[in-house]
């Protein structure tokens, strides 16, 4: 079987999507040792013709991306717009939507869209994986990501075995659907800014963090009559 993994992250090989895709693929390979897998990066929008051709040639397609303004990144929409309804005729198609925000709630509208898109493309929807709280995983020690990676591995195995993602695992992966009270309390403290402050300081930009470069009334603002 020829699997095509389309990585829709604008960060390309440096993306969290890539890391999660690798775990998924390892799980698939644990069941299907002969799996032929190709990974393509949609950020190279000049290659869209090749991306579409690879979809036509594949037996199964997985599209993964980070949540951007409650939807797919612009480059992913650019790719979707290049597809023809018969490019996927009857083929299995699955999705991964990962977000920085921890709650799955944010990814629900785009997941609804992706289910509808699968119908529009005459594809067989094998499921949409939703996972929040992903932004930090590249900084986390292996102990912290172990369980997450195991879940992706198991989901990959279920896809290779059953032809679709295990629904129970999909639901578990998406948790939390909304913030729990402890997380809400934490987010009201300055401690929740730690990651951003560290990055701001690394860039000597901490003192400028509240800048408003385009505030009305500054620069060349046209006076209203």
């Amino acid at each position, binding site marked *: 079987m020829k699997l095509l993994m389309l990585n829709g992250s604008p960060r390309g090989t440096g993306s969290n999507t890539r890391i999660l895709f690798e775990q998924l693929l390892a799980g698939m390979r644990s069941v299907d040792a002969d799996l032929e897998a190709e990974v393509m990066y949609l950020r190279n929008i000049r290659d869209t013709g090749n991306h579409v051709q690879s979809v036509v040639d594949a037996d199964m397609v997985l599209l993964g991306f980070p949540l951007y303004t409650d939807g797919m990144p612009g480059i992913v929409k650019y790719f979707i717009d290049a597809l023809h309804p018969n490019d996927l005729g009857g083929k299995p198609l699955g999705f991964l939507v990962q977000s920085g925000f921890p709650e799955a709630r944010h990814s629900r509208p785009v997941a609804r869209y992706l289910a509808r898109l699968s119908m529009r493309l005459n594809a067989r929807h094998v499921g949409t994986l939703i996972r929040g709280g992903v932004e930090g995983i590249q900084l986390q020690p292996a102990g912290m990501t172990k369980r997450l990676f195991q879940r992706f591995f198991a989901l990959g195995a279920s896809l290779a075995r059953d032809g679709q993602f295990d629904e129970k695992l999909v639901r578990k992966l998406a948790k939390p659907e909304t*913030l729990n009270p402890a997380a809400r309390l934490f987010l009201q403290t300055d401690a929740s800014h730690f990651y951003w402050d560290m990055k701001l300081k690394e860039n000597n930009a901490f003192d400028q963090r509240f800048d408003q470069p385009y505030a009305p009334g500054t620069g060349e603002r046209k006076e209203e009559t």
Partner: protein
Amino acid sequence: MERKTRHVVLLDGHPGDADERYIRYLETLEISLGERGITVNRFQLKDLNLQYCTGCWMCWWGTPGRCILKDDMEILYPEILRCDQLLYVSPMIAGYVSALTKKVMDRLIPLIHPYIEVVEGECHHRKRYDAYPNLALLVQPEAGSDKEDMAILQEWMPRLALNFRSACDFVRSMDEPVEEVLREIAYA
């Protein structure tokens, strides 16, 4: 606080040649808004030089509030911050707004702050500016568009607005009379 729409920034995200109906619809809308004293600043996104967000987050942690991509977004940022309503107009393509429209939506993240706070019990980004325009979406349906396609957009836009620390005034289709859209804008 009561809010009245006086100034609209209209971002036309049609990526190609719009048909007669699309052009007429927007013309009528613009003229009618003018008659009601509502000013419209319209941008044809396809004529602007705009790049896709690369997810570098320099606008959040390197050059706070500023995108490091130097293109025509620099024209749009101040315009967007001084209008009452940001009206996206797009043909529906594959059941969603155009890639060109989504490109601009992605590029608006410099206008908010990276810090996260709890709003309506959920994680959202903190405001960078004191106030933001309301959002609205007007789409031209495509062949095969149905209620579910519109319902998806109607679920999505208020979410987008919440993350932009704003509100969604409406999501409407060009299959509806232009008077309806006009009323929505005038009384938003």
